[in-house]
């Protein structure tokens, strides 16, 4: 597990690529593209992305930095060991579901 700094415009994960890592935003701003929809997440409301890595699926969204950003990067076993059964993992699932529901027109 490590903290990585990204410059604006850097692609962190890309839809369709094998998911290896889960990322947590510590500071900065990220644009998340899911299908034809875009969301912006910022450190005001820290979010997790890349949950696909936990189940061996490919990434289903593309995340790109909007400004200088710091992210914690961890693999699936690290994530489950440290954050499994905590509010972090619950919040991560909630935001994963929320983005999906918005694109589906459910909310």
């Amino acid at each position, binding site marked *: 597990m490590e903290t990585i700094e990204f410059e604006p415009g850097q692609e962190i994960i890309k839809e369709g690529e094998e998911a290896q890592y889960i990322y947590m935003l510590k500071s900065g701003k990220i644009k998340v593209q899911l299908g034809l929809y875009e969301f912006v997440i910022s450190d005001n409301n820290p979010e997790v992305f890349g949950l696909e890595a936990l189940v061996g699926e490919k990434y*289903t969204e593309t995340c790109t930095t909007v400004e200088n950003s710091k992210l914690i990067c961890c693999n699936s076993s690290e994530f489950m060991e440290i954050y499994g059964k905590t509010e972090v993992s619950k919040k991560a699932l909630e935001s994963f579901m929320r983005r*999906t529901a918005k694109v*589906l027109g459910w909310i």
Partner: protein
Amino acid sequence: MKIEGVVFKAGEVPKTLFKIVSGTVRETRNKTYHDLGHGDYVALLEYLLEEPIQENIVATEETEIIEVSLEDEYLNIIKRIIELRKVIFESSIDLEDIVLDDFNFEKVDIDKYLEQVESLLTLSAGDLPDDRDEALRVIESLDDDKIITKVNLVRSFIEKFPEEEEGARLLIETAAKVYIVLNDRYVAKSLLKKLLLHYSDIPKFCYEAIKTLEGIYRDEGNIIWRRYNKIAKILEVKLRGND
């Protein structure tokens, strides 16, 4: 627990996560329903977001559900959400590069299907007059109880007068009647898709066909309606630009 009928009432915030063992549960959000089956979670969205249910969630047949915990099901839930996201990709289109494949045409040959329907109903379409106006008069004089005959005459009209815009108008009108009178979504959709294939150069008719397709898919709760909704928006902008 076995249940039939309402699982969660509208306005209720689900405090329990249920997984379906067998049976069918129907969720409705924003007037679009979808049915859940074995292995699905009931009201997963509202449970995770701690939000009220929009409309009653009901078991449409005798259904067995079990209470599960978020922690135990965590990875399975991620898999289910990814499955939902796959639906998004299947129903998304590249707005800059629409191709006919995006219309999700049925694999069955449309004309062959209509011929089968015709023979089943033992209705003969008969020959269409060679004169365009006379042919139109014959088609338009048919009552709603001869709707399948009308469908076949419209097909003949398009074959006989392929350059006539009236063919597009007839397809839209006949598709709407088939849908209303016979409640046959398949034939109605086939006619509208036939219009998209034959009259793809006439945006105003394509727009009407796509809007009707959107309505039909929405009525049947098929998420493909979103695809038609997007295409209709693009056409609407193009049509406005032509004014």
